[in-house]
């Protein structure tokens, strides 16, 4: 909210400097957004009388002037402006002053033999505009010697604060003044609204048929002349960014900011039927004062006459009955509306207005009678005329509340020991009234304008919360909430910097583990992928629906209702999608060969357990070119290695895993695999991206990727390791090459070999796979190295031969493979 320093001083008697005031505002929670002090830069400039302006003896385009800046001494100034003339009033800058428009500090100098000890200024030189055709010429009655900024009303700083949603009362200059006074910055000036005598019966009456309106006052003033506002009012509104319109409208704006009391004035002569009704909207359309049309519904409260909607209650008026230059009779509305309903109506119609902003935060419910008197008085003062009686409907709601503060809680909750007397004094300057007081506590009445204190709004207990637990919690809340409000008020005014910081108590000599087993897995997966050479990305969780659809059928439940951009509207089915898009983007920048990873959510549904954490890796393009080994395209085995590296790092026993062909549809159907633990649990997938996916992303291949489903990995068993197997005998290694059908998987051969003689075979490793013209068509050669580990004695040649035969037989039985 913006206001000027002079406006603040109307309500606050203070000698504090601007900086003291703005520092206090920030400290007490009315955070300073900024100060515009146009006068500060203009402070050295005074109004001067150009006593003489003659042709410069040595320069055609210059004038030699004698200037009186108020003290009667004549100062010699050389001026280049064509409009400098004898007798004019101008703005003078003495030597030593800084010129904002040019960034130069003036010095006494000599220009072609004539002394120049100052400067006559243009608007541009003062930083007030672009006009540089000549120096500023002021009216003849401008007072010589007076600071220009003061005379031009530019010396009044504009203070802008941000008001938090709980502080409707601080959306008024008087509310701000009250807070400052309570914080020790001066005293709040008294304010009263003497009654304006009523001289006739109001021709307009109220009828309330909507729960939105709790109480409303109205008053007709007839015989007004609606001219432009006087300068002081226009200046104030202009300073805070409002456009003066006419006196009647400006008066309502004035009260909105001065007292936080929105008002509306209807042109009484344009109202039809003599009754203004507050009622639910009925689908009518009206033209509002912002020149937009709105259609009102039953949830909205409107103010209507017999001709139709004349105002959207608490939000905006209609043009039809607005006051204009020819208005001679007005009906002033001063109402109390339900904050929630006004908020919802405003949001539904997307209207942001000063009135809505105040009504939805809650206005002072006790101020209505005084406010209508003050408004009537100002209307008559500025526009003339005479006032009717006050007409009303509804009634003042019971807003009175009390709250108790145990002084001990200031330290017990707030951490600051404040003496009881000081706390009470603070509350009293804020307008709280002492109802009861003893040594340890005080009970106060809450002022009408503090809707946020002891508000006792409804709880919203968690769904499924145990009833007993909820009831105990609700009881505890009723006991302490208002007290917390008061603790906040006292601390706020004291300044939170006064609270001594206390380090957290130590829970034990050594802190407990910070991460859960699952969180450690996530961290380890991230580090493992990076150690594999993948660079971690953090991508948006949403992407374009069309791109998401390349990876999985898109679920409409995961389409954003209000995306910020068309290409960020669908939650991603897998982080692989984000990485593929990132790789394509890097390729477009000239970096086609990248290896990326991301550990983040995949979105499979809305439920909590449908947002699993996935460690994803993606490699694109080729391996680096090197003189040692040729560059090659990345392939599915690179992705498989990444996936397995994560699983190994997370302690998944490799012998418990199986790899089967096939995987999600975004992979090349023939070049992808799924890693399972047991028959069902899918731990990982890997493969080459489907060419259709690459085409859809406008990306060049190849790209290979893997996903590891971290939530699916079982907690590693906390078992002690068994004693290691360290036989005394040398292991023995033999190679076997099997000719098998092309469809036989490596895993089948390895499994069969491993199982041929479990006590002796310690390991089987595949070291060659060959398909080509050296074997018959439809076949392939798979070569494995089998490690035999004797345990009791060295094997004889005959025994070795026998076990090798077993291996060959087992593989042949399982796969039909023959030794080559």
């Amino acid at each position, binding site marked *: 909210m913006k206001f000027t320093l002079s406006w603040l001083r109307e309500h606050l008697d203070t000698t504090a400097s601007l900086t003291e005031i703005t520092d206090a505002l920030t400290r007490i929670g009315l955070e300073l957004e900024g100060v515009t002090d146009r006068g500060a830069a203009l402070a050295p400039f005074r109004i001067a009388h150009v006593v003489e302006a003659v042709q410069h003896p040595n320069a055609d385009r210059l004038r030699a002037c004698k200037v009186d800046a108020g003290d009667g001494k004549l100062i010699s100034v050389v001026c280049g402006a064509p409009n400098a003339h004898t007798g004019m009033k101008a703005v003078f800058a003495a030597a030593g002053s800084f010129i904002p428009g040019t960034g130069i500090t003036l010095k006494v100098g000599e220009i072609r033999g004539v002394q120049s000890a100052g400067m006559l200024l243009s608007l541009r030189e003062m930083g007030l505009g672009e006009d540089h055709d000549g120096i500023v010429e002021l009216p003849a009655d401008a007072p010589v010697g007076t600071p220009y900024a003061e005379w031009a009303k530019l010396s009044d700083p504009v203070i802008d604060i941000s008001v938090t949603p709980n502080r409707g009362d601080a959306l008024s200059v008087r509310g701000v003044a009250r807070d400052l006074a309570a914080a020790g910055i001066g005293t709040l000036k008294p304010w009263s609204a003497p009654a304006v005598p009523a001289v006739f019966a109001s021709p307009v009456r109220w009828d309330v048929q909507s729960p939105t309106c709790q109480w409303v006052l109205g008053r007709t003033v007839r015989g007004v002349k609606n001219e432009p506002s006087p300068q002081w009012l226009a200046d104030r509104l202009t300073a805070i960014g409002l456009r003066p319109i006419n006196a009647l409208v400006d008066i309502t704006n004035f009260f909105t900011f001065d007292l936080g009391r929105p008002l509306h004035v209807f042109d009484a002569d344009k109202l039809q039927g003599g009754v203004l009704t507050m009622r639910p909207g009925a689908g009518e359309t009206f033209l509002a004062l912002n020149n937009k049309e709105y259609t009102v519904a039953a949830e909205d409260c409107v103010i209507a006459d017999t001709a139709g909607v004349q105002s959207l209650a608490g939000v905006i008026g209609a043009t039809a009955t607005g006051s204009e230059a020819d208005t001679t009779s007005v009906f002033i509305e001063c109402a109390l509306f339900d904050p929630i309903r006004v908020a919802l109506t405003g949001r539904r119609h997307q209207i942001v207005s000063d009135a809505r902003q105040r009504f939805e935060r809650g206005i002072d419910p006790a101020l209505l009678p005084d406010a209508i008197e003050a408004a009537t008085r100002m209307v008559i003062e500025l526009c003339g005329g005479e006032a009717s009686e006050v007409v009303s409907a509804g009634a003042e709601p019971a807003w009175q509340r009390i709250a108790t503060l145990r002084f001990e809680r200031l330290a017990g909750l707030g951490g600051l020991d404040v003496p009881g007397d000081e706390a009470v004094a603070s509350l009293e300057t804020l307008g709280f009234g002492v109802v009861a007081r003893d040594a340890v506590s005080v009970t106060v009445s809450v002022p009408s304008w503090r809707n946020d204190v002891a508000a006792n709004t409804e709880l919203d207990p968690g*769904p499924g919360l145990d009833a007993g637990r909820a009831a*105990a919690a609700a009881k*505890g809340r009723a006991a302490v909430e208002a007290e917390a409000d008061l603790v906040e008020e006292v601390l*706020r005014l004291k300044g939170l910097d006064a609270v001594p910081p206390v*380090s957290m108590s130590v829970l034990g000599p050594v802190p407990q583990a910070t991460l859960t087993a699952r969180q450690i897995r996530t961290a380890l997966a991230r580090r493992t992928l990076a150690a594999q050479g993948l*660079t971690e990305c953090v991508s948006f*969780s949403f992407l374009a629906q069309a791109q998401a659809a390349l990876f999985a059928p898109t679920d409409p439940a995961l389409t954003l209702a209000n*995306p910020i951009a068309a290409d960020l509207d669908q939650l991603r089915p897998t982080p692989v999608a984000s990485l593929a898009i990132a790789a394509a983007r890097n390729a477009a920048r000239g970096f086609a060969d990248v290896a990326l990873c991301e550990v983040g959510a995949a979105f499979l549904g809305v439920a909590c357990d449908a947002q699993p954490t996935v460690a994803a890796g993606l490699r694109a393009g080729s391996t*680096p070119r090197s*003189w040692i080994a040729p560059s090659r395209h990345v392939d599915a085995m690179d992705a498989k290695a990444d996936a397995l590296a994560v699983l190994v790092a997370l302690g998944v026993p490799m012998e418990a895993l199986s790899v089967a062909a096939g995987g999600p549809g975004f992979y090349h159907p023939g070049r992808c695999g799924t890693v399972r633990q047991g028959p069902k649990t899918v731990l990982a997938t890997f493969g080459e991206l489907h060419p259709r996916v690459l085409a859809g992303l406008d990306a060049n291949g190849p790209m290979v990727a893997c996903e590891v489903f971290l939530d699916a990995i079982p907690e590693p068993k906390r078992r002690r390791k068994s004693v290691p197997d360290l036989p005394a005998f040398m292991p023995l290694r033999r190679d076997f090459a099997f000719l098998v059908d092309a469809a036989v998987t490596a895993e089948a051969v390895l499994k069969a070999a491993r199982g041929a003689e479990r006590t002796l075979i310690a390991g089987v490793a595949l070291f060659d796979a060959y398909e080509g013209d050296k074997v018959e068509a439809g076949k392939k050669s798979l070569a494995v190295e089998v490690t035999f580990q004797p345990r009791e004695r060295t094997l004889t040649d005959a025994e070795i031969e026998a076990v090798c035969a077993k291996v060959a037989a087992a593989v042949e039985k399982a796969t039909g493979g023959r030794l080559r």
Partner: protein
Amino acid sequence: MTDDLLDLKDRTEAALSAAADLRAWDAIRVGVLGKNGSLTALLKELGKVAPEQRRERGAALNRLKDDLAAAIEARRSTLEAAALDAKLAAERMDVTLPPRPVQPGLIHPISRTMEKMATIFGAMGFAVAEGPDIESDWHNFGALNIPAHHPARADHDTFYLPPSAPGAAPPVLRTHTSPVQARAMLERGLPFRVVAPGRTYRADHDATHSPMFHQIEGLALGRDITLGHLKGCLIDFLRTFFGISNLPVRFRSSYFPFTEPSMEVDIGWNRKTGELGGGGDWLEILGSGMVHPKVLANCGIDPSVWQGFAFGMGVERVTMLKHGIPDLRPFYDSDIRWLRHYGFNPLAAAMLHEGV
């Protein structure tokens, strides 16, 4: 030693010195010690020597044999060493060639910051808590004292998903990490201290706002935790995180629906240079406060018994400040050049004993 033996010794030693390679050396060895070698012949002839001289001659011959064997062996070592030197000299490689390429991977600055945060808060007794990105309206708003009509909702720029049924409150992408507070209060035994780093979302996109960003939430509940502890905890964290032991920290009264009293926290910096610590300017860095009694009650905790503090901090903002990263948008762009510039070694994890 007789003249013939001395002569043999001299000849052999001269020949060994002259042998340039192992082949020549072997010829000498065979010529002296071989089956038909000159020394072997002398030994064979020993029987023919007169018995009274035999003993002396035998001893001299044996001595000569030992001497010559040693000389031959020594020459072999020398020649072998020379041969190896020559071989190795021929095997010279250009060591300035690049090695096999290894592509190092890196950790994103956001992850690194969140690790550091967990480490520091962990040392203060906090555990890491989590919650889902897609949240219910209650967890994101209702539990936190932000009812549907609350003006604060307008500030949140919430992303909505389609409601599960007509009229039901639509699920939201969490606008802050605060819903994890509600989850922790419902699920954990008191007292507890948790921090919750994670992704958050707001429908806002410009130079300084991203539709997705990260926050860390903190929540400490106990019987006697005061605003003083909140200040102490945050000062301790900020000074450790930024590595500035006298970092100025300022606390301003503010408002959040879910805390009371509420405060915003500023740190001292120089607006012009971006340097932290001095400079006389203040930079808002996080929001915090004592947990509102309504929030405790909504989550089934009796606020007349339990109290504590909560805070929320932007992860990107402190990351940018700590590392002097000027622009927010590249965090999410996955530009490999940016990632290589700002990324972190995965093996240098954030650990207390290595300093954070």
